[in-house]
Structure formats: C-alpha cells, structure tokens
C-alpha cells in the first residue's frame, strides 16, 4: 500500500526512490537482530526450545512410562544389556522381568561360583538358559540413561521431570509477573500515599525469610502441585513489582508522556500505547531470569522433600534421589543434573542476551 505521490521540494533522500515509502525498523525488530547476532543467547534460545520440545513430546517415544516399576532391574547402569526372565506359564500370560547383565549372577546364588559365571556368560552370548522355574534370554532392550532403584527408566523420568520443572517455572513466573506488573504499575502511576503503602508492603515481604514460609505452607497444606507454584510465584513477584514501579515512574516524567497528556489523550490510551510498550523490555528480561530462579527454588523444595509427590518426578526430585545413591549409581545424579543445569544456563544466556538486545542504551542513536 503506497501513498499517492506527493511532491516535496528540498527533501533529501539517500538511495531510495522518493515516492516509495520507507519501512522503519521498530526497536523490537532491532532487538531481534541484535539477539540474532549474539551467538550465546541464540544458542540458549534454541537449546531451551529443544529442551521444552523434548520434555513435552519425548516421553511418548521412549517406550517406557515414568511410573512403571520393574524391581528385578534394580538400578541398572546406562545401556546395560537387559536379560529377560520369563516365569513358568501357569494361567494366562507368563511373567516377564528384566534383569541387568551386571546383576545376573545374583540370580544363581544357590549354585557354585564357577557355575554362576558360566551360566551368565552363556546368556550374555545369546544362548537361552532354562532352569526349573524360569527361562533366561538376552534382549535387545536397553535403557539409555539406565534405571533408578525401582527399575524405572531414567530417560523417561528425566523428561517427565523436565515437564514438571518447566511447568512450575513458567506457571510460577506467570503468577509473579502478573502480580508484580500490576502492583508495580499501580504504585508507580498513583504515586503518593498509594505508592507508599504498596511499596512498604513489598519491603516488609522482602524482609521475611520466604523460603521458610514456603516450606511452612507446603508442610501445612500438603505437597500440592498448584500450591507449589502459587507459593513460589508469591515469593518472586516482589522484585518485578519494584522494577515495574521504577520504570513507570521514570517514564511518567518523560517528555513524550507529557506530550501525550498535552494532546488530551485518555489515560487508558496513554497507559496502553505509551507506557506499557516501554516497560515491556525490562519485564521480558526479568521474566527470562525469573524462570531459572523459580526452577531452582522448586529444586530446593524437592531436595527438602517438599516437591511433587512420587511417583511423579521433577528435576529437583530426581536430583534428590540421585544424591542419595551417588556412591553406587552416579548416573542417577548425573543425568538430571546435566539436564537441569544446562537448561538453567541456556535461560541465563538468553536473559543476558535479551538484556543486551533490549537495553535502549545499547541501541543505535
């Protein structure tokens, strides 16, 4: 859609044809270009999206469910060959249990040492072994990340745990952003006594030992998933409120807001068109940095045994389990830790990149 040709003598225009409308680049698009040039932030974004996708859809494709236990497997190490032990057929289907090759010898404890090794070696070679009760045979089945002490597939549990951790991270952040932005914006707009009261409330809440309060909440009301992120969100909104209030106050005295008032625009329009778009940058930055914060807090709660109730998993809960058995089965700690920390890193890189990209100071003059 180009405008009708209008002549404008004396207009100096470099390059483009005079009647062709020149599209401007908004600060948002500028910021996006800058973000794209920041390799670390961009890989953070890509990694984080990939992680979200993997946690969201991955559990459908692992072939295991997060809650099915297989006690015979015990904590089997990653990629251990799995031996299938098929029980004698009585009525209906025979019972099938998996046993990790490393613990196979324990199956034959009633036999002499030498026999045990020979049997295990045979099975490992692919021979089927039959005794009075069971049939043993090598399977092609593997657990990429191994299994936990109850024989549950660790990969599936890590991915499902990621779902919970990310969901808690986002939901709690959303709660904190909504409360924080509204609280801060009202305080900043209204000023005076309203501001004084609202911000004093924030100061008082800041001073409380909030982790302790969240713990008390969880102890009194039980380990409830909804309560978990409401509780965390309630802690995290304070800083957001302060940031937004500061931004709104400094914007209120900007000349472009005075110009908008001078035009006789409605307060609604001034807030929606002039103030909100200009506080969005800091809000977005702080939001990306709040998500990892919240996830960390969730992990702390899980570590204290106040996280999601089993058999549900979260990265925090998995870390807790893993830390208990790290002398014997390090992988139970290693994989959740790897997933958790890499996600936190990617979010922090993304947040830092966004800060650089959206910071008006770094924009071109």
């Amino acid at each position: 859609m180009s405008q009708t040709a209008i002549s404008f003598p004396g207009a100096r225009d470099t390059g483009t044809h005079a009647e062709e409308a020149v599209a401007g680049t908004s600060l948002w698009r500028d910021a996006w270009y800058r973000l794209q040039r920041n390799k670390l932030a961009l890989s953070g974004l890509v990694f984080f999206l990939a992680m979200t996708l993997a946690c969201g859809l991955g559990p459908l494709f692992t072939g295991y469910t997060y809650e099915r236990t297989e006690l015979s497997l015990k904590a089997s190490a990653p990629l251990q060959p799995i031996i299938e032990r098929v029980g004698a057929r009585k009525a209906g289907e025979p019972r099938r249990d998996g046993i990790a090759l490393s613990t196979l010898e324990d199956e034959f404890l009633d036999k002499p040492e030498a026999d045990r090794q020979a049997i295990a070696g045979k099975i490992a070679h692919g021979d089927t072994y039959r005794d009075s009760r069971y049939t043993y045979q090598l399977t092609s089945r593997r657990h990429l990340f191994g299994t936990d002490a109850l024989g549950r597939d660790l990969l599936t549990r890590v991915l499902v745990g990621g779902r919970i951790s990310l969901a808690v991270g986002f939901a709690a952040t959303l709660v904190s952003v909504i409360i924080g932005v509204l609280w801060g914006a009202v305080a900043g707009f209204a000023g005076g006594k309203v501001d004084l009261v609202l911000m004093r409330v924030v100061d008082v809440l800041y001073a409380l030992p909030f982790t302790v309060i969240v713990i008390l909440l969880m102890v009194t009301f039980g380990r409830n998933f909804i309560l978990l992120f409401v509780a965390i969100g309630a802690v995290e909104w304070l800083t957001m409120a302060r940031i937004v209030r500061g931004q709104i106050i400094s914007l209120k005295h900007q000349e472009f807001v005075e110009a908008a008032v001078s035009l006789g625009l409605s307060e609604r329009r001034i807030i929606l068109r002039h103030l909100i778009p200009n506080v969005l940058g800091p809000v977005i930055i702080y939001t990306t940095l709040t998500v990892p914060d919240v996830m960390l807090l969730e992990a702390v709660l899980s570590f204290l045994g106040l996280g999601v109730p089993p058999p549900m998993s979260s990265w925090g809960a998995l870390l807790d389990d893993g830390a208990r058995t790290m002398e014997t089965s390090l992988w139970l700690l290693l994989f959740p830790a790897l997933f958790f920390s890499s996600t936190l890193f990617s979010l922090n890189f993304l947040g830092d990149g966004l800060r650089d990209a959206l910071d008006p100071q770094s924009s071109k003059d």
Partner: protein
Amino acid sequence: MSRFLELNELKTYFPIFLGTVFRRAAGTVKAVDGIQLDLEKGEILGLVGESGCGKSTLARTVMQLIRNTGGAVYLEGRNLSELNPRQVRAERPNFQMIFQDPYASLNPRMTVHDALAEAIQTRGKLRKAVLTQKIAELLTTVGLPPNQMRRYPHEFSGGQRQRIAIARALAPEPKLIIADEPVSALDVSIQSQIINLLLRLCRERQLTMIFISHDISVVKYISDRIAVMYLGRLMEIGPAAAVVETPLHPYTRALVSAVPIPDPIRERARQRIILQGDPPSPLDPPSGCVFHPRCPYVKEACKRARPALEEKLPQRRAACIRIGEI
C-alpha cells in the same frame, strides 16, 4: 474585547516535603510567582531568563500540565484554571507544546505515522487514506520527506526529530504553541533552520507562540516582544528590539551585556556587567525586589517593597523603582 491569552497574577508553587513515612511540609518553591502577561493573536513572545528561574514551570502551567496555585490562565476569554480535568482534556488540542529534548519527547516505540495519526485524530477519527494524506502534508510542511513516515524516532537525527515534534504539535491545529527551549539540545548549525521553520509556521498560520530560551539573541530574532523572567517573576517586558538595544531593568542590562556582538569594533567596546553571586534559592526568595542582592544599583528602598511591573515608556514595562535615575 479580551486578549487572546492572558495570564493574570499566575502562581505555581511546589510544596517541598521532607521524610518518607512522616512527611512534613518544609517550605514551598515559588517557581512562578505572580506573572501578569497578555498576548495578541498571532504574536510571538520571547521568554528569557537564567536556568531555574521558572520558564519551564510557567510553560507547563499555561499548558495546564501543572495546575496553578493561584491566579488564572485565560485563553480566548476562557479561564483554563477553573476547568475540571475532563474539560481541560477537551481544550487541549487548542494549545500545544514543543519540548526541549527531541530525544525524550517522542515515544520510541511509535512510528512517525502513528504518532502523528494520534495527534491529528484528537480532532476526530479520520478515514485511513485521508489520514495518511494529512500526515504526508504535515511532514512536507516541516521539511521532512513523507516517505519516511513508517520510520521510528531513533532512525532520525536530532534536528529531524525536532521537526517531527513540531509536526505533532501542529497536528491538532492549535491556536497557541509554547516552545520550551526547542533548539538548545540541537547543533548550532541546525538551530537556525528550526527557528526559521517555527517563525514561518507562526506567520503562515496566524499562530500565537511563547518561545522560551536563555539565549537573548535567538529570542530577539524570533520574537515580537520579549519578557525577562527572574526567580519566578517578570522583570521587564517590551518590544524585542527595544528591550535588547535599550534595556531598562538592571537585570536585562546584565543579560544583554553578556551577549557577544558580531561587530569587532563594538565588541571591543562592550562592557560586561558581571552579576555577583548565584541566583537566590526560590525556596527562600529575598525580600522586596528579588533581584536586589545582585543588583549594582541597589538602595535601601529596594529591600523593602516588591516593585510592580509598571509602564515606564510607551509599550515598555519594567519592575524597578530606579529606572528614571540610572
């Protein structure tokens, strides 16, 4: 018949508070303290004074961005300071302001098109095509290529931004424009372009303008009359050339004497009147004539009574009791 714009004993005081929880008034800053001023339609009034003398506060008060503490602002006979906020809002398109800093006065998230569309439509919604046409005309008027209207403020230079700000001020078709130091943030080379643009626009559109500056030579060039302000009050007002060439008030003399003269012979003969000390705090203004602590001609009577702004010569008024003697 009433004047186009009349400021009647206009006062704007800022209460100063101390403490946060138990706030208590610690005094008042009398930023604008009894300004009496009339403007004819189509007139350009230059307002000069040192930093902190209350020029911007006066501008914001006339604009009703700050409501005045006392006195009244009459625009075409209507007392703006009596209107409720709703009524003021409805009047706002009639008077517009151009701000000092073109980097702060444009919303960084809005294109030129959107900013101007918003300003134009304060007079009622328009069809898209008509609107775009109007925006293009406005940009042409202020000397910007209309094909740049989809751009954002950060894509323009300071001078171009000030042109955009001028276009925005013109958009609601105001009758009164207040320009608060519109060129002091700009390069010297661009200042004259902007000043000439403002001058041309005022003449073409019969606009009334209050042009604020601390540079008396700029003000002399653009204004019909000059008003000199000191510590919230008017010291002198009169025709531009007369005020600069034969200043009446000692303060105006000091201001004028500080301006270099382009002619080297006369420049050598120029005698600078150096004022002693800093301007006093508006929190605690001196008794009598507020200028007396720095005035070279001060006498006892100056410290007692505040002199009125009186007609000393035809069309020339000054607030000083010693004008006949010095």
